[in-house]
């Protein structure tokens, strides 16, 4: 006998095709869905929003999970987990994928949070859009089992798209959900999902996700490792990881770094880091704005200025005048633009 009310399911919603479909499938079975969208601080869309280019169409900046909630018809709660998530990313128990993507720990982290919401709301289960065999690190059978165990969700974690390949969950065993109406999707092809989207009337689904997490980006991973390696007492803040997403980064010495904006939006964003730090811009010329993090000596300030000169409109000139400022101080530095070898030596 099932609960004397519709089943209530808490879903991890990224807004990609799979999680949207999992929600739509459960709704189609009469299950009430409540979505959770965890904001980890490593989402590429969030970065575009931080840059805040006024020419960017709002639709390109939207949170796909909220859109999924509108299209499928369920509420999505956005949860800021950035600080705790960062601690997990620094030392994941199950290690990283190809870059600094701790996919298994990430799932466990989110599912533990979802379990707490399930208990708080007296819900019956947690679901995800995971598909068996779709991702090499976190979606093979053993990984799915480990994730469920570690999240403490034994029997209450449903993956509706691949459910028929997996052991029956409590709602299935109790007959609250008809296992035969759950699916047997596996592998990397999206063909079945596309067909299901059509059948469920999910015609404007968000583009399949993937590639939206900075942690799987090799350039970001290099900068992240550099940040963690140089962190005093292992302390890294979300503000510091936010900065890793912006501009060109140069490690000049331990404790000394230069970040140079690549466009007007990044220059504007970098202004946030100006208080207390040296900033560098080319005098009387369109240039990158760069922020120096740390305490540069005179030679290091010249080095920073030469990098900024390289990214100014006067990069072909023998010397460029760079204005360096920190709080009330202002200095003018004349330097030749940095050459390729110098950039390559310091660039992260």
């Amino acid at each position: 006998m099932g609960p004397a009310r519709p089943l209530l399911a808490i879903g991890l919603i990224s807004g990609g095709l799979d999680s949207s479909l999992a929600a739509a499938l459960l709704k189609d079975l009469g299950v009430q869905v409540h979505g959770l969208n965890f904001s980890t601080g490593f989402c590429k869309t969030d970065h575009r929003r931080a840059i805040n280019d006024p020419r960017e169409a709002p639709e390109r900046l939207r949170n796909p999970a909220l859109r999924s909630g509108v299209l499928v018809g369920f509420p999505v709660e956005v949860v800021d987990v950035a600080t705790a998530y960062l601690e997990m990313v620094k030392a994941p128990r199950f290690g990283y994928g190809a870059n600094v993507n701790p996919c298994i720990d990430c799932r466990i982290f989110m599912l533990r949070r979802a379990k707490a919401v399930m208990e708080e709301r007296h819900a019956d289960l947690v679901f995800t859009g995971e598909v068996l065999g779709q991702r090499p690190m976190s979606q093979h059978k053993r990984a799915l089992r480990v994730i469920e165990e570690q999240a403490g969700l034994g029997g209450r974690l449903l993956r509706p798209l691949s459910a028929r390949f997996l052991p029956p969950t409590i709602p299935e065993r109790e007959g609250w959900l008809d296992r035969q109406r759950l699916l047997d999707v596996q592998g990397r092809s999206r063909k079945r999902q596309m067909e299901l989207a059509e059948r469920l009337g999910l015609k404007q689904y968000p583009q399949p996700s993937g590639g939206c997490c900075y942690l799987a980006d090799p350039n970001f991973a290099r900068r992240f490792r550099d940040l963690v390696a140089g962190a005093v007492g292992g302390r890294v803040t979300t503000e510091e990881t936010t900065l890793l997403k912006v501009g060109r980064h140069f490690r000049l010495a331990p404790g000394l770094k230069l970040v140079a904006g690549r466009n007007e939006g990044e220059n504007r964003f970098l202004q946030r880091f100006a208080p207390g730090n040296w900033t560098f811009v080319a005098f009387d010329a369109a240039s990158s704005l760069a922020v120096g993090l740390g305490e540069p000596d005179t030679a290091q300030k010249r080095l920073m200025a030469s990098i900024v000169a390289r990214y100014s409109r006067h990069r072909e000139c023998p010397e460029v005048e760079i204005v360096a400022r920190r709080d009330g101080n202002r200095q003018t530095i004349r330097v030749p633009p940095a050459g390729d070898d110098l950039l390559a030596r310091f660039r992260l």
Partner: protein
Amino acid sequence: MSDPLPRPDRVLDVLGYYCPIPVIRTDRMLKSMPAGQVLELLSDDRGVLADIPDWCAGHQHEYLGHRQEGRRYHLFIRKR
């Protein structure tokens, strides 16, 4: 021409913050308000123009529209 947007009962200023803060604080603020009241959200995160209407639709609140002043957006929501 008269402004069709109503006078707000509460104003929430999230200038300088971007996703997910505007949505999270809007959610929190509306929870503290009685049904029928209007919240004005003041934001410079362009993405709220897509997210807040979507969030309202999912949570059954009434999105009343927005007014733009330069790079600042004033969004109006009636709590249901």
